[in-house]
């Protein structure tokens, strides 16, 4: 019995060494280790042995079984490796074929830019509010300290609706009025994103529709230094900390003092020219305007019922597409609303 076991083990291991395919390996397994295999058959004979030989033979049989099983596992592992290698070398798998692509969606570049803006102001504690796109003259202009027949109205070419007194909002600034009504008399800070409309011929640099983000903070003891802090932080996060930022006095009827914020030109780096040619982005000035801002005008506070002697605040407004154009070097504003999928999928 013992000799038989030894001889079986030797035969089996010899045969196993010659096994070169998974199929042959399976045949080998069935031949030696299977239910009707040689080892099993041999083991069935164990019971017929004299009692004193049984422990020795049983131990031996177990050892043989374990040895064969281990050899089988080892061979199987080796074969699997060989097969994989063979598949590759035989180019059964063309690893350079284009993959099967999942459908990729894209957010519109305006939405993406808006989200960046939300994130920056969100981190400074600004909530987000929205308001309607159809507005009345009172909210869009008069409550913002722009009376009828005021020359400042030239700053906003307006689409009027056929119903008198109604218009498409020319800026997100009427949102200031809505925000103040909502929070009065509490202090607050919000941004108000949305679409705006201007009666302007469509060119590469002007559009009849665009997105703006208005911002407003109202409270006690808010200063122009706070405004500068918030907007400088925004400009640096949006355009890079290496950009210079400057505040230039300007005029908006609903803020006093008012300012425009410029950053050093990203194309020429503020030099005004690129390789000896005048810079086409900043038109030689070295600066590009990114937004308008100021301290809330007392008349605006009065229109809503905040006491301008007790409250101060700041407001700002920026054009989203303009930001995107500067940031991504888009030269033509009209592309934003053509929705050419080749444009839409460029930004992700």
């Amino acid at each position, binding site marked *: 019995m013992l000799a038989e076991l030894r001889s079986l083990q030797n035969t089996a291991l010899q045969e196993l060494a010659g096994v070169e395919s998974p199929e042959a390996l399976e045949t080998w397994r069935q031949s030696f280790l299977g239910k009707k295999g040689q080892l099993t058959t041999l083991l069935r004979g164990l019971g017929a042995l004299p009692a004193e030989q049984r422990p020795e033979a049983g131990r031996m049989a177990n050892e043989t079984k374990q040895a064969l099983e281990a050899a089988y596992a080892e061979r199987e592992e080796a074969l699997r490796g060989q097969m994989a290698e063979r598949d590759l070398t035989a180019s059964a798998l063309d690893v350079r074929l284009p993959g099967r*692509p999942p*459908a*990729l*969606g*894209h*957010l*519109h570049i305006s*939405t993406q830019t808006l989200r960046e803006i939300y994130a920056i102001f969100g981190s*400074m*504690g600004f*909530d*987000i*509010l*929205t308001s*309607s*796109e*159809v507005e*009345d003259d009172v909210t869009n202009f008069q409550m913002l300290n722009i009376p009828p*027949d005021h*020359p*400042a109205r030239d*700053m906003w070419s307006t*689409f*009027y*609706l*056929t*119903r008198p007194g*109604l218009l*498409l909002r020319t800026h997100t600034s009427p949102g200031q009025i809505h925000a103040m009504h909502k929070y009065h008399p509490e*202090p607050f800070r919000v941004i108000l994103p949305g*679409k705006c*409309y201007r*009666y302007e011929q469509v060119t590469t640099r002007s559009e*009849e529709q665009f997105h703006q983000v208005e911002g407003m903070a109202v409270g*006690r*003891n*808010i*200063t*122009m*230094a*706070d405004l*500068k*802090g*918030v907007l400088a*932080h925004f400009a640096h996060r949006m355009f890079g900390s290496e950009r210079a930022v*400057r*505040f*230039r*006095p*300007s*005029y908006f009827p609903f803020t*006093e*003092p008012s300012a*425009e914020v410029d950053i050093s030109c990203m194309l020429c780096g503020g030099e005004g020219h690129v390789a000896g040619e005048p810079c086409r982005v900043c038109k030689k000035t070295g600066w590009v305007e990114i937004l308008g801002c100021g301290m809330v005008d*007392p008349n605006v506070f009065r229109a809503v019922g905040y006491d301008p002697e007790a409250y101060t605040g700041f407001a700002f407004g920026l054009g989203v597409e303009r930001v995107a154009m500067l940031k991504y070097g888009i030269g033509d504003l009209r592309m934003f609303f*053509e*929705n*050419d*999928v080749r444009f*839409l999928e460029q930004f992700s």
Partner: protein
Amino acid sequence: MLISLQWLREFVPFTGTVQELAERLTMQGLEVEAIIDPFASIAKIVVGHVAERTPHPESDHLSVCTVDVGGPEALQIVCGAPNVAAGQNVPVALIGTSMPGGMEIKKAKLRGVVSTGMICSERELGLSEEHDGIMVLPASLRPGQLLTEALGLEREVLEVGITPNRADCLSVLGIARETALGFGLPLTMPALNLKEDPAAGNAAQAVRLEIADGELCPVYRARVLTGARIGKSPDWMRYRLLAIGQRPISNIVDVTNYILMELGQPLHSFDRALLKGDVIRVAPASDGQTITTLDGQERKLLGSDLLIWDAERPVALAGVMGGANSSITDASTEVLLECAIFRPGTIRKTARRLALPSESSYRFERGVDQVGSVFALERAAQLMAEVSGAKVMAGVATAEPKPWAPREHIFRLERCNALLGISLTAEFCRSTLTGLGCSVDDSDAACWRVGSPPHRLDLEREVDLFEECGRVHGLDRIPAVLPKISKSLDSVQMSDTEFGFIQALKAWGVGSGLREAVNYSFVGTEDLDRLNLPVEGRIKIANPLSEDQNVLRTEIAPGLLNNVRHNLAQGNASLRLFEVAKAFVEDAASDTGARENSRLGVLVHGARHSQEWPWEQSEADYLDVKGLVENLLAHLRLGAGSYVLEPEHPYLAPCVRVEVATKAGPKLVGRIGRVEPKIADAYHARKEVWLADLDVDLLRALSRATKPSFKSLPKFPPVRRDVTVICPATLHAEAVEAAIRELKPKNLESLALVAVYAPEAASEDKAASDGKAAERNLTFRLTYRHAERTLVDKEVDKEHGKVLAGLPQKLPVRI
């Protein structure tokens, strides 16, 4: 506003560079948008001396000139001007010079004679309309000198963007004031040297002034000049006007323009000989009245327009434009010079309604310095006398029903610093305000009284003075600090707002492989008509830019369909788009008369996959768009939705109503459908256009009403059984599903359609020829599971048997 540096330097001794000035003005709030060389186009023209002139051998009107241009050799130039003569100094364009019209001067042969340059007329140089002959220059000039230098032409002009509040800066004087302030320089007004001629008469007696309403016209002054000779203005005046883009006309008219640009006071000169009677009246028009303005246009007026009348008729549209019946012509000799102030709103209304913006109306509507107007009138009269030889009558006809009232404001330094966030000193603020022309009474240190000057109409309130102090100090010098702003902690819950919901929808769209489109909110009436959308409820734009953008979109579809057209034209044939935007419909109950309803539009067209390999080529169809909608509803915890055919729809066929079950019954959340081929054709769509239009506001409301809640994961294994039913092709899978559920097999956990097989016979032709209805096979997979124990085959077989037996009884199907 264009500002000539030469002109500016007459008012303020600024010696720095134009760049320094531009930088300083910009940081004071007067944004210099460009620095222009107005004579760049003639920068290369040189002075030439005609040494010799001989007639052209082959022509009776050409001359051959030998012209010294300062070089070693004189040039031979053929000239066609009759006035060219030896001994003249003339402007010469050398070979290679580009002329203002764009022509480049080349060496040429004129009737056999070589010409190496061109002698220019004033018109060719853009200096006037003069083209009868060449321009003859002063004899004192040196040949070879640049013409621009020789004539002292301005080479540096600032283009300054003036904000609507700074009417005072719409003049050389205004910019000079700011320059003086910015660089600490003195401001010098031009010396006044007006010689009146009492012998010519007295203006106050010659003209009687009547002002109907002092609110509309607070002051009207007139000077009278007699014996003027109309002609060309002197060169210095013409060149100066040209440098800032003003076309010189004639000496009298040029002076009014010159003073307007220099001092910001609009003036008007009448031909007094054409005025009837000796009276000037300022009074409103009557409705429907007309006046012919000096551009020859007849203007229809309203009672809100203000007119200048003589004894009989209107002679000017006040502050906007003079009348044709009384304007200065070449024959004029008698001049009535008007210097008035009109109410800004009145002028603005008229100029806008008549689309007649002018340099005058632009200034009047922003406000003109009433006190300073006296000086402007005197200087204008003096210049007119100088350039036209006219005599100036003694005195000024004056009517001033509403004299300038000085304004005083309080100024609290503490509040100024509190607003700006800095610590300006009292001394700085005092000197700044004084420098601006304000009077300062600081006897109460905490609350000064500050009088603002008449040219600064924008300094109306204390806060305006704060701005001035901040502006002069420099906003750039205010520190940037991150604010300690107190605010309520009741922040808006982002996810709970419409805004937050739309953000989530967009994330879903991107995750579903859709591209976000953003379209115009306005479309054309035609776009809505094409989709057979109702005319009622449309919100129209009163002043559209074009007829294809004259109405607000009442649905999301038109924009997306336009995107189909654009993209197909560009060769982008496979489209998977979405847009979240507002649709606008009239609503009397809304504050703005408009209901703004946010919609989600999804559009698929053409190949299902953007590339062929390794997908099988296939076209997007109903199941693509429905799958997207089902997926969205599931994402919003609204179930799969139910889908009901709608027999009629304005532009979708088939059209499917998407309904969501609620406690209050099914709610219509939107529609899915194929754009009718005829309509799709209009957008050049070659493949089926499938569209979903969903109500975002309603989806949000429904989604908010549900909450995600945890369900334990199953502990015991499922048992799955498939059933394939052979049924008429017209029987909806949903009906089979419902029937299975009605049979209520015990422990059924879920039920899913796993295969649809339409044997060839499903083609209707064959079915018809066989005389039986087309059939298809539907395979459903039923998953059975017990929550607390493992199911045994036997009990599942029993339940499943109920289904197999029950289905053919409920429906015309075979198993």
